[in-house]
């Protein structure tokens, strides 16, 4: 390696370079005329500052809220905890209300699956497939107000006893007649028929 003495000698040579008077004495006069009045701060520099400031403030805000969660009554940060909890609760409640309202609207607007396809409701029991689909489309299994609303809608849309086939209907009518006869409540039609029979026997 080079000696420090050698380097020092070279440094002396470097320092002995003459500086013209125009640099030190008259140089400033020339320069001051060329200097612009306004110094401009680059926009990028300002952006960096503002971004850094925003970041720090966000970190500080989050940190205080985080620290407040562990606070107990009587401590400085406890009011912060209370406030944040209140805000969170109100926000959650509002969200729930909005969601429920939206769901309710969709339930009321949505037409029945049979009506959409233009098929008339046939007599008979609803098939398993349709009931399953309806269960899927109508979230009536959920608890609360929505559940009861959905059940009511289901009942109004598909009243189960009316859906019967022709054969089943006849059989059911017969059963009902028999039931009525057994109970002593004779239907009006039967009464009329019985009256006719009675009149015929009297004529004979």
């Amino acid at each position, binding site marked *: 390696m080079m000696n420090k003495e050698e380097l020092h000698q*070279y440094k002396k040579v470097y320092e002995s370079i003459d500086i013209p008077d*125009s640099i030190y004495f008259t*140089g400033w006069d*020339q320069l001051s005329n060329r200097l612009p009045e306004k110094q401009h*701060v680059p926009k990028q520099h300002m952006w960096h500052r503002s971004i850094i400031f925003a970041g720090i403030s966000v970190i500080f805000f989050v940190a205080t809220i985080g620290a407040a969660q562990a606070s107990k009554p009587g401590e400085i940060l406890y009011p912060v905890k209370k406030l944040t909890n209140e805000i969170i609760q109100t926000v959650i409640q509002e969200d729930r209300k909005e969601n429920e309202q939206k769901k309710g609207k969709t339930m009321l607007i949505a037409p029945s699956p049979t009506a959409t396809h233009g098929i008339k409701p046939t007599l008979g029991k609803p098939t398993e497939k349709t009931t399953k689909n309806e269960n899927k489309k109508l979230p009536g299994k959920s608890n609360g107000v929505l559940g009861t609303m959905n059940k009511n809608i289901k009942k109004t849309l598909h009243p189960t006893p009316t859906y019967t086939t022709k054969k089943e209907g006849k059989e059911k009518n017969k059963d009902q007649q028999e039931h009525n006869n057994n109970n002593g409540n004779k239907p009006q039609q039967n009464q009329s028929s019985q009256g006719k029979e009675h009149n015929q026997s009297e004529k004979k």
Partner: protein
Amino acid sequence: MEELDLIDKAKEGNKKAFEELYKLYCKRIYRYCLINIARNDLAQDLCQETFIKAWKAIPTFTIKDGGTFQAFLFRIARNLLIDLSRKKKEFSLQTYQEIEIDEQLEEHVDREQSIERLKVALAKLNDIDRQIIILRYFEEMSHADAAQVIGIKDSALRVRTHRILQKLKGLLTNDE
């Protein structure tokens, strides 16, 4: 008045404070430009340009970043030198080392063999190595400041200076 106060005032647009800063650093900046460029008039122009740029950019200068005002000024001067050498290749540092030093220095300083050898050796160094020698040993800058001016890492500069000194020693012994 202290340098920091002068810088603060210059940031606010105080030209008197900037004049003080100019008088503190103009000789060093001129010398640095002259040793890197072949002509005296060009060195003067570069010196003035350096201070104009410094005046414009001084609001962005902060000591908190780890930089010093001398590093800030020398950085501007170096950028201007690089720009000039790109525009006009005849003023490149290599050509200067063999011409201008001989003319400038030999008129005023006693001719010593070691100086001659140094000039030759400096001419053989590449640009960054030459800047490291000038800034670290002639301008007596710290590693951090010199690294900031050149635009390399502090640790890289430390390693590089060690190698450059070995290289210089080799060059000087070969010449002998």
